[in-house]
């Protein structure tokens, strides 16, 4: 399965298992979503379980809060992460705080799915990576898969999780992996082991990172599309890097990070998002706090530039092979 099919499969599995799972969002019903993630759900489970929503991200999240309060498990789609902001107040002020402010009387077991990230010539409003705007909000879990297998397993775990999960999907790798070389062919998902996705129920637990590539010289901490770019960069540049695919940003798998950093002593943090105040800053801060005496070089960050994502400059903006190479060299030289 490619990543879209895996996500679609997670929906089907969970809607069949749990009658309280309801799916809605813009264009998700009859049509099955602009990326086809919800294709076939309305036909299979009926209009009361999967339906189109008005173009109102605030209303989508706001009504989902009410549904969760009733006892349902809303699994909602925000069409692009760039359009999540009209729903931001409901997410930050309501979804994230409900369990806390009611001392557990009301909980918000919902999943807010949204395609994010660049690499598709989507310009500034179809390319954003706003995960740091959610990792700063206590009460939310933030999950970002990088393979079809993980996407399905993490999404099922997120649906079953008692807490609200913001689930960002790297749209660049929905239909095939992407190593950052936009001008060279990639092995399609179908030929990759991470795309061997069972049809049935399984989970990939939240809060556990994955070692995407083992290595001894340097630790790359990343997630989403950048996992593939980082692995390719390590290989292309002959750096024996250990690439950690976080999978869950909050709560973070700090143990895996610490173990790797203590082994390598060198760290590169890679994110697609704009650099300043991105989640990479938190990672760099944590690593130097907790592994200071193991570090042989400063923790280096690779990130998107602190500008909006400019349409024509897709590849000058995207943190691609060249940026990775220079950063790997820098960390190894320091």
């Amino acid at each position, binding site marked *: 399965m490619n990543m879209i099919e895996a996500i679609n499969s997670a929906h089907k599995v969970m809607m069949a298992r749990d009658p309280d799972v*309801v799916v809605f969002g813009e264009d998700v019903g009859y049509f099955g979503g602009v990326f086809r993630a919800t294709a076939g759900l309305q036909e299979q489970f009926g209009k*009361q*379980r999967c339906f189109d*929503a*008005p173009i*109102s991200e*605030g*209303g989508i999240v*706001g*009504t*989902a*809060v*009410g*549904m*969760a*309060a*009733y*006892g*349902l498990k809303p699994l909602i789609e925000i069409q692009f992460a760039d359009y999540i902001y*009209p729903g931001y*107040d*409901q997410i930050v*002020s*309501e979804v994230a705080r*409900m*369990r*806390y*402010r*009611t*001392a*557990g*009387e*009301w*909980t918000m077991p919902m999943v807010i799915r949204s395609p994010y990230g660049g690499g598709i010539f989507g310009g500034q409003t179809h390319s954003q990576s706003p995960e740091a705007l959610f990792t700063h909000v*206590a*009460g939310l*879990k933030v999950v970002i898969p990088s393979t079809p297998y993980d996407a399905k397993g993490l999404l099922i775990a997120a649906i079953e*999780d*008692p*807490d609200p999960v913001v689930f960002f999907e790297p749209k660049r790798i929905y239909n095939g992996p992407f190593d950052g070389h936009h001008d060279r062919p990639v092995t399609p998902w179908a030929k990759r082991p991470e795309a061997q996705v069972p049809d049935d129920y399984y989970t990939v637990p939240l*809060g556990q990172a994955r070692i995407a590539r083992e290595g001894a010289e340097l630790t790359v901490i990343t997630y989403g599309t950048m996992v593939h770019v980082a692995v390719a960069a390590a290989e292309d540049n002959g750096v024996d890097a250990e690439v950690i695919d976080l999978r869950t940003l*909050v*709560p*973070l798998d*700090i143990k895996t990070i610490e173990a790797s950093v203590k082994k390598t002593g060198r760290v590169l943090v890679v994110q697609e998002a704009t650099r300043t105040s991105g989640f990479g800053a938190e990672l760099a801060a944590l690593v130097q706090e907790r592994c200071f005496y193991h570090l042989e070089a400063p923790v280096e960050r690779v990130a998107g530039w602190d500008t909006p994502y400019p349409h024509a400059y897709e590849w000058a903006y995207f943190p691609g092979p060249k940026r990775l190479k220079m950063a790997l060299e820098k960390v190894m030289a320091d």
Partner: protein
Amino acid sequence: MSEADPQTRRNAPALSLHVPEPAFRPGDTPDFSSIPVPPAGAAPRPDTAAPARETFPLTDALVRVLDEDGRAVGPWDPKLDPDTLRKMLKDMVTVRVFDDRMYRAQRQGKTSFYMKCTGEEAIAVAAAAATHRDDMHFPTYRQQGLLVSRGYPLTDMMCQIYSNRGDKLQGRQLPIMYSDKPHGFFSISGNLGTQYPQAVGWAMASAIKGDSRIAMGWIGDGATAEGDFHSAMTFAAVYTAPVILAVVNNQWAISSFSGIAGAEKSTFAARAVGYGVAGLRVDGNDALAVYAAVQWAAERARANAGPTLIEFFTYRAEGHSTSDDPTGYRPAGEAQQWPLGDPIARLRQHLTALGEWDDERHDALVKEADLAVRAAQKEAEKLGILPEQGRENIQSMFEDVYAEVPWHIAEQRDQCLKEAGL
């Protein structure tokens, strides 16, 4: 010419910005005779399954049942039995006494903050009476009447206000931000408006499940300007959600009058019709009218005939909260001039007119309420007042952010306990 210079090259008249202004400011003598008060009984009562557009005239009218002599008249008379009426009166009196005592408690430094609903007691109390016990309310901070009507213990309310050991919310919320699922009272948010689409979502869930319970959402006149109001109306209309959406128009936000929320140009009830939602404008100081309107809307919702927006026309008789002094922006004594009178006095007059009430019984009721509130306060204060809080059970602060405490919060908890010398 700077960019912001007006373009005067056309011989067109100059535009100017209109900024609404309330009729009276401090120093003025309030006179509300320009507010139209239609006679009780005049508004027609459409069928509860009528098309929304048919309610258009009612969004500009005022559903009133109690006339000047305290008689219930017209098609909206809910014909309640005296026991129900007395129960409502008792609840309203209790709310008022409760408010007075808690206001005083705040002034005495026993807590940080308090908000009264003086003058608006009929609205929440009658709405509670007209909805089923298992319908779900999504209130703002002025619907304490819902809890009182549904028998939520006064002591529990006070413990929340004191953020004390008895506070089921563990001291996490500002005073009066109650929450109680068993009493059908959703957690109050500090963020205005958010509960409105939530009420719609709950109602949608009830419909998805083939349930028969309905939801009722609450909002203030000022907060109708938030985008959440629009989300709620849109989703309610689109999915024919079984929900009642109440706007408590008490004429004021904090210092802004309802004209700043749009009331100068239209009524809040009139918003309904544009969405294809039924709309009613109701005398909020008339407990019977409130009851009747909510009953109408509930019947409509339960029959899958769609949502209703109800504007309750009332007046915020006191300050916005203990942090507010309204004499800074409106004349003192406006409440006394309010043409729709006091809701408690009007219900009392009605019961008296029915021969089901008298001064003696009323005095006894007030005394009883006072005693009950005092007793509850005593109980609550045994469990502590705010200034004593924040030292015990510090680790509770780190719970319920998530179902389980993740490592980073556990580390912070341990650090905090160390800080506290624990």
